[in-house]
């Protein structure tokens, strides 16, 4: 953290539980209007504004501009309002599913706010509720949703064939419910954990569950160990860049359950899988930002080799975490694509053969994977276009000797 810029340091220090109030006070004394604006942008961009605001209040810092606090407070309250609504809806759905004997697991969302932060207001509200059900019970879950006033997102205009196609390939369907005029909720019903960089075995997820008491209702959720692995993988979904808010979730998980976490179990679950590098990297990066203890033996076992560690450091450094790729231009995209297809494949492979397998599957993506990515079936022409686009950085490299540049 010492290598970070001043506003970044303050941002991270405030989020940490072990921070030094006097030290932060000293740093913010030097802040001008631009710094406060920059800090606000950083906090909101990473979706960490609710917990940041809460930490700010508990620290009772001096000389915090009232407008800065006012803007954060407004954002905090609106977020809290949304989370309360979503949690209430989630409970309503899960209770109804339970009555019908449909096991369902809420993924992320308000449940994590309660579980990791002990407070609904402290985690950014998602735009929808993600619920995982078993594929054999999907239809029953779909019927149940329709009985509590949820309708398919396109107002049921899909034919049965289209609906089945979407479910087969996208492995999820969306439903919406207009609760009152002006307030609606979107539910995404999943049968798979798609969107993760490395495939998470679904059966493992279903086997490692526990019950969580949500205001008297028993809710199914992953065990702490599974949640840690899941969050490590989830943090890499946004174009395979680490998301700081998930690193913070990991920090909160470890902070809250440090004495209960079974590191041996995590080691056993991941040591021979492709998840190993993701977990190693998310954990060490979260540790770098927020500072907490991870058992040395655990890190030693899952530590990737020296080349992988070197590549990881180039890929995921504080700049890539603090400033998302959306700020970058097309040249960065080209570079990123080449990086994505070759380097990250190497990083996550178990061996050279495994690496070749990953690259092949990424370039010649199976149709079902491709449909999952684009949420709709693609024609052969679109598929060729997709492959062509992926190969563009390589042809650029061969022709001009550079991967990126205008």
């Amino acid at each position, binding site marked *: 953290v010492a290598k970070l810029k001043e506003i970044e340091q303050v941002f991270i220090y405030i989020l940490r539980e072990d921070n030094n109030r006097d030290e932060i006070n000293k740093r913010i004394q030097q802040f001008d209007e631009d710094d406060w604006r920059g800090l606000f942008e950083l906090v909101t961009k990473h979706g960490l504004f609710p917990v940041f605001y809460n930490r700010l*209040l508990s620290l009772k810092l001096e000389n915090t501009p009232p407008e800065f606090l006012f803007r954060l*407070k407004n954002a*905090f*309250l*609106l977020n*809290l*309002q949304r989370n*309360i*609504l979503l949690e*209430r809806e989630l409970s309503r759905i899960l209770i109804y599913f339970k009555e019908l004997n449909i096991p369902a697991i809420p993924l992320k969302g308000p449940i994590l706010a309660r579980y990791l932060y002990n407070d609904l*207001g402290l985690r950014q509200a998602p735009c929808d509720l993600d619920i995982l059900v078993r594929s054999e019970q999907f239809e029953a879950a779909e019927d149940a949703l329709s009985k509590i006033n949820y309708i398919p997102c396109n107002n049921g205009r899909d034919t049965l064939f289209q609906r089945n196609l979407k479910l087969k390939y996208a492995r999820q369907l969306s439903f919406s419910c207009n*609760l*009152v*005029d*002006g*307030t609606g909720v979107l539910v995404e019903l999943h049968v798979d954990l798609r969107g993760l960089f490395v495939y998470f075995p679904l059966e493992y997820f279903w086997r490692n569950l526990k019950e969580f008491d949500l205001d008297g209702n028993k809710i199914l959720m992953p065990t702490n160990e599974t949640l840690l692995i899941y969050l490590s993988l989830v943090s890499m979904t946004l174009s395979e860049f680490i998301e700081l808010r998930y690193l913070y979730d990991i920090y909160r998980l470890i902070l809250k359950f440090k004495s209960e976490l079974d590191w041996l179990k995590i080691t056993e679950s991941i040591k021979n899988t492709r998840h190993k590098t993701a977990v190693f990297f998310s954990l060490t990066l979260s540790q770098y930002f927020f500072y907490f203890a991870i058992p040395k033996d655990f890190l030693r076992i899952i530590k990737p080799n020296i080349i992988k560690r070197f590549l990881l450091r180039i890929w995921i450094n504080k700049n890539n975490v603090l400033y998302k790729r959306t700020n970058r231009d097309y040249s960065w995209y080209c570079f990123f694509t080449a990086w994505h297809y070759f380097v990250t494949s190497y990083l996550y492979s178990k061996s050279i053969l495994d690496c070749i397998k990953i690259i092949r599957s990424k370039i010649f993506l199976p149709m079902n994977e491709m449909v999952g990515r684009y949420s709709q079936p693609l024609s052969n022409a679109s598929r060729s276009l997709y492959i062509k686009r992926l190969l563009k950085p390589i042809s650029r490299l061969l022709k001009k000797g550079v991967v990126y540049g205008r």
Partner: protein
Amino acid sequence: MEDEKILKKNPDIVSRTIEDETILMPIYKTSDEINCIYTLNQVAARVWELIDGKKSLGKIKKILSGEFASPEKELDRELAKFLKDLKGIKAIKVKGQ
């Protein structure tokens, strides 16, 4: 007669105390009250706390007069105004109605 009434909160309105301020928020925002958040003063916050669906209005008045130094008439006036506001935003209703 008025003092015997028992008030109860609307479960769709939640409260939260932030920076010593009690805030009321409707969970379901209707189109005419998008982003409506109400801030309560000290007396109003205490009244909101006392409304529990069990205490009568008379009992709430009695507790308030023991806690606040304001003259009884002023307290009554303030309480009546606050309850009218709360009813206006559908935050409370009389039990049994």
